[in-house]
């Protein structure tokens, strides 16, 4: 019966080699969690930074969960995409981070990665854009034999998330 409010924003992203970025995000929870209101997933606008290299989205996240257990604490996952000058979109990075577990405001930085692919694919990516993408989006946070996945580091997604917890003390969880 505990409740969690996740209120915050996806500030933006930095460190990507591409410039026009947007981000698809989603929040994944375990079975014990019930979304009372808000949307689980979304997509930001494309930001083309004019000054500096950080892309700012300032995309709001506002979710209200009820939970009957701690398992499956919400985790955020991101797909950062870049849009090139032809308006084509390509993947720039996958990222994932847990929603903090202590109440208050948190500044999060979520590093991202992207699949490297074979050398042909790398070559193709360098010249004609596109790039390897995960076939299954949940690989971002699921643990398979990930050593087979060869990745390159992308930039960082910055988040500012405030957390309100309610009634956790009632069930012996101190926060």
């Amino acid at each position: 019966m505990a409740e969690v409010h996740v209120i915050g924003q996806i500030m933006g992203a930095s460190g990507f080699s591409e410039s026009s970025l947007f981000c698809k995000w989603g929040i994944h929870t375990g079975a014990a969690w019930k979304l009372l209101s808000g949307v689980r997933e979304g997509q930001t606008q494309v930001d083309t930074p004019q000054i500096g290299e950080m892309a700012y989205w300032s995309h709001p996240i506002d979710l209200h969960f009820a939970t009957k257990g701690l398992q499956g604490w919400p985790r955020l996952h991101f797909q950062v995409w870049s849009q090139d000058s032809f308006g084509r979109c390509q993947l720039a990075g996958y990222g994932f981070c847990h929603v903090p577990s202590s109440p208050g405001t948190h500044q999060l930085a979520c590093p991202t990665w992207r699949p490297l692919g074979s050398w042909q694919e790398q070559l193709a990516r360098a010249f004609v854009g596109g790039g390897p993408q995960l076939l299954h989006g949940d690989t971002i946070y699921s643990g398979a034999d990930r050593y087979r996945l060869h990745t390159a580091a992308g930039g960082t997604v910055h988040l500012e998330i405030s957390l309100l917890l309610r009634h956790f003390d009632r069930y012996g969880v101190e926060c």
Partner: protein
Amino acid sequence: MVSEKSHLGNQQEPVQEEPKTYLLSMTARRGPRSLPPIPSTSRTGFAEFSMRGRMREKLQAARSKAESALLQEMPTPRPRRLRSPSKKELETEFGTEPGKKVESTQQEIDSQSHSRVKFRDSARKIKPKPQVPPGFPSAEEAYNFFTFNFDPEPEDSEKKTKASHREGTNQEEEEGEEEEPPAQGGGKETDEEELLNGDDAEDFLLGLDHMVDDFIAVRPADYESIHDRLQMEREMLFIPSRQAVPTYKKLPENVQPRFLEDEGLYTGVRPEVSRTNQNIMENRLLVQDPERRWFGDDGRILALPNPIKPFPSRPPVETQELSIKGELETMYKKAVKYVHSSQHMIRSGDPPGNFQLDIDISGLLFTHHPCFSREHVLAAKLAQLYDQYLARHQRNKAKFLTDKLQALRNAVQTGLDSEKPHQSPDTIQKTINDYKSEIRQTRKLRDAEQEKDRTLLKTIIKVWKEMKSLREFQRFTNTPLKLVLRKEKVDQKADEEAYEAEIQVEISELLEEHTEEYAQKMEEYRTSLQQWKAWRKAQKAKKKKRKQAAEEHPYDETEEPYPEEDLVKPIPPEPTDRAVIEQEVRERATQSRRRPGEPMLVPELSLAGSITPNNQCPRAEVLRREDVKKRSLYLKVLFNNKEVSRTVTRPLGADFRVHFGQIFNLQIVNWPESLALQVYETIGHSGPTLLAEVFLPIPETTVFTGRAPIEEMEFSSNQHVTLDHEGVGSGVPFSFEADGSNQLILMTSGKVSHSVAWAIGENGIPLIPPLSQQNIGFRSALKRADAISSIGTSGLTDMKKLAKWAAESKLDPNDPNNAPLMQLISVATSGESYVPDFFRLEQLQQEFNFVSDQELNRSKRFRLLLLRSQEVPEFRNYKQIPVYDREIMEKVFQDYEKRLRDRNVIETKEHIDTHRAIVAKYLQQVRESVINRFLIAKQYFLLADMIVEEEVPNISILGLSLFKLAEQKRPLRPRRKGRKKVTAQNLSDGDIKLLVNIVRAYDIPVRKPAVSKFQQPSRSSRMFSEKHAASPSTHSPNHNADYPLGQVLVRPFVEVSFQRTVCHTTTAEGPNPSWNEELELPFRAPNGDYSTASLQSVKDVVFINIFDEVLHDVLEDDRERGSGIHTRIERHWLGCVKIPFSTIYFQARIDGTFKIDIPPVLLGYSKERNMILERGFDSVRNLSEGSYITLFITIEPQLVPGESVQEKFESQEDEKLLQASEKFQAECAFKFPNRQCLTTVIDINGKTVFITRYLKPLNPPEELLSVYPNNLQATAELVARYVSLIPFLPDTVSFAGICDLWSTSDQFLDLLAGDEEEHAVLLCNYFLSLGKKAWLVMGNAIPEGPTAYVLTWEQGHYLIWNPCSGHFYGQFDTFCPLKNVGCLIGPDNIWFNIQRYDSPLRINFDVTKPKLWKSFFSRSLPYPGLSSVQPEELIYQRSDKAAAAELQDRLEKILKEKIMDWRPRHLTRWNRYCTSTLRHFLPLLEKSQGDDVEDDHRAELLKQLGDYRFSGFPLHMPYSEVKPLIDAVYSTGVHNIDVPNVEFALAVYIHPYPKNVLSVWIYVASLIRNR
């Protein structure tokens, strides 16, 4: 080691290559040291002993030197050195321990000692061998010889004791070292030795070359003859034979092998072992284990089933090259540009790929065709039978059953014979019994099968004979079919024996059965007999007793109860007779079985026969053949009921086969809903006829191209064909007999062989739409909630197939391989298909939960929050939700729960009328489903939806604004400025206002002076034709005759009421008042929800009522008149204009002149015609009746109406037509963007339908036609009135902001609700059926906006009909609400208005002029003859008069109650007398349609209610719900009169029209008694 040591050697003595090679060669020569040395050489060695001693010294020195060097370098030599003392100790044991192993190391070799050692060594070796060369010393001797020889040698010790000592040690050492048998010496060791020896040998090189021969003994290779070896091996080893072991050896004596598998038991798959290995094993076991424990009943080695699973149980450890797999797979995707389209897209992000379905149509075969000759019929039958025979033959069930029977019998035999000791006799008996019952069953089955086989064979032969006779009879052959009966000879004797044996076995079995049965029966008999006996005894005793009792108490007799029924004496069963059974068995055998010795008949059907050529055939047959030649066939492939492709046309072969062999690749996007083939036949040059439709099953997702089997799909057609030649026709009786008896009727039928499969893409990915896509489409949208069910159905059908297959293929239920299958089948067939659709991921979830699910779900707060976020209407606008559960009342949910409960319960309370209640429910459901469908589409926003961008001022705008500076400040004719639009998101209560600007009104009815009771006004019986002419007013203006205060004719004011808020203007004077006032009314959205969807569905109506303000002088005393005024203001309702809010919302503003809806009877008022005053204006105005008001209505701030979604709907229309219509629309929109052009519309099922399909003559109700049988125009009016009585329900309300759905006329009449289009379509259809020329007019009207009217051509002029009101207007009527015309739609064409003007006043309606009207179907695109979507005929049920009467009473009651409610502070009296008068009067009004009864009525009322001042009027409305009626009554404001002694009268009359269309009349009146 080796290399190092050689290295060491090099270090020690750097030698050139040459000597080294030499050395090596030398060692090679010395290699065979193991050979026994020749004694002579050793003797020669003795001579140089002293020399050797010297040499040894030298060597010793070299060796110590080398050793010291070695020690410095590496530790290996150390242990040897350390060990040397211990070796000294071992000296004594030297001889006794010859086998002791000592390190073999480099040692400077004394050739003599070496040879000595060798000698000893070899001697020892030879010792076991019997053939020692004669004269050779024995080992003992040799040993003794050497040892003895050693000590006494004087010179040695003399020369140098130290040296000798050292030599001794050396020798010992060496001896010890050489103990190791060099013969077997490992190559490595010898290598070492050799190398080092080589090093040592350097010393030899100094001068001992000549002595080499002395050191080497050449000996032959040690060899053991193969025979010896084999001999030896034979003695020691056992080699099992590879020969197969005969079974009897493996089994206990006199035991037949028993094969469990044949008995039908599952034995499992034995592991694969090669036959040879098995034989070897068996042979070995037979020798090793004579008890034969290792052999099973079947004589094979006992084995567990193959333990190897066919699949890996452990994830394969992959090598690097196969690395990435499964979910980690990445795919290179090109950079994609997202196309923004309003198309309905699947949400899954991935753009819908193209999927491919391959349909392979290989051919067609007719099993019957009209052109079949009689012979063909027989041939087809024969072929069919033969197929059946082949199928049966292949399955050979009889054989299988016979074998099974045999196996079972064997099993019983073995079970009886060899009783295994460890099994209890009980179990054996039980198994035997089981077997026996099994035998019985099997035998029965076998008999049946055999009989079937036999009859089939007989039938085949019979048909063949018939065919032969037919061929003979008609003297020609049509079919190449030829049946050959092959006789298979059988051994007569063996056969007979087998037959007899079989019969005997059967007889014995039957006998046994019978005896068993007999025994059982006997047992039963005995028990029952005993019972019976006992009973008899008891009975007798009782009787006796009774007799005694009767003697004692004669009266009790009757009371004696009979406790039991009389038992019948049981009859003993009869024993069975062997002869009888035998008789039976034999009879059956002859029937169902081949007779012994009878040859086996094997029919063989071949196509080897020859067909009689045409010239030898009779004429009828030739005709038939020619007819066949003329015929050709093709198949159409229909995907989702749309033709996607067709095969080539192929002629029909003489054998009635058509080969197509075409593969169609269907590129599809959605999951297919249906797949069908249509078989078309063309005869000669005539058009194709549809023979039959074959529905193909949509393949499962596992069926891929290349793997799909060719399947045959049968089809048949019900066409009736009679032919004038030999062909037998189809669906007509014919007979083979000459007398025409035994008639047959055959229908055209055949088989299509085809295969349907999913294609596989380039990269091996099957092109199958995902399952989630299966439920896309409108119909599926209804099933959205239970998508699983739709998938499940296909699975279920498959399940049945599966079960059938399992039954057919005789799956062994015990086989663990089949276990999951069996379970699945049992689950599916038992109907409890509970397959858990989940698996548990978080195993420990339960343990760590804070609360249970139930508790979580019980939380009221969470529920409220959830419902709010789901936008459930009741909770959508909750702003704040309490923090604690306890603060939330339970009753919050009550309404919601009630609604959920009542979703399927039709409640009649609100609707009174059940039919309308049902319709309302239905509409609700349609609405929900449509909305569901569009929810997805609505989520796609365009940039313009999200961003409002102010235009950056450019030079032209600046220039314009400069011009504006020069403009007049206050222009004489100001224009309305466009206002900023506001999106509806951030609005709240009170933000929105409705602005109503009432400009002026024309022709308001004026008060009429009270006519005296007896004056009968002349009633002008106006006919239809007169209406258009100016009707001369019969009433002369009569000023201030009756009105004491010298009032003007009328003092009208306007009251606007909206959402129960009322505003009114000031009072103006005269029949043509001008107010020019702006009224402001607040707007409240339902539930405070200002979203677009909610605003669109606002059903509220703006009532604009016109009242007359009447002043009554209530001064009671005439004397006071001079000093005071005491008047009361009364208001009399004159009429109203109703404008729905939704219209205002969509139009943004409404500006125009509207006809005031004036009640047909307005007592005390009449239309004033002041011809003198306004002559000029009148001539135009009086063209039409009625009063008008000019209004301007808008909403402040301006709201953005929801865009209707431009959707592409699926359609069944021809693709060409759709393209043409798109093109047409685009062209029209390009030329005249503001004119409405409609070619396709969406029907109620969400499919696009071409618009002309809606128009078709449809019969109006008979009832209406019979009213004015001769007057067409009157009938037309009546029909229009009927149509207008069907309630109006705008689509935009029901399908908020989505689309306009067109229902067909029958649907419309069933629903009894629709908007302009439906009304117009129905009216147009009626007019067409009345024989009028009628069109649908699509255009703009006020106040409706874009709408549909009906245009008719009367003699010489056009009439425009408003279908919703039933009014009609001439083309040149200025007050016609239709303001512009976009297009005309007829039953067979569409004409778009391409004239310069679009106002009906200024255009020409002659559609034949292509310059004025652009037609859709023209010469280039002829009208294809589209079938109508309308029904053939409308069926009207007579309305239930009783129900209408009941409804009438209830309505009256409700309205009366309401009026009383609205007057809470006053007493409401009802004047019954007046009410009854009014009630009588209302039917008259209905009959005359509200025309021209005023005067009669007035007179009558006056007559009856002479003493009352009466004000009231009848309201007329179509009936839909109660609420609009109440609103209408409320808006008249009758209840507002607060004169103390007022009385009211209210009467309701409902006139039922066919199809439950109800016309409601409400007469409300207030009466004030005159004093």
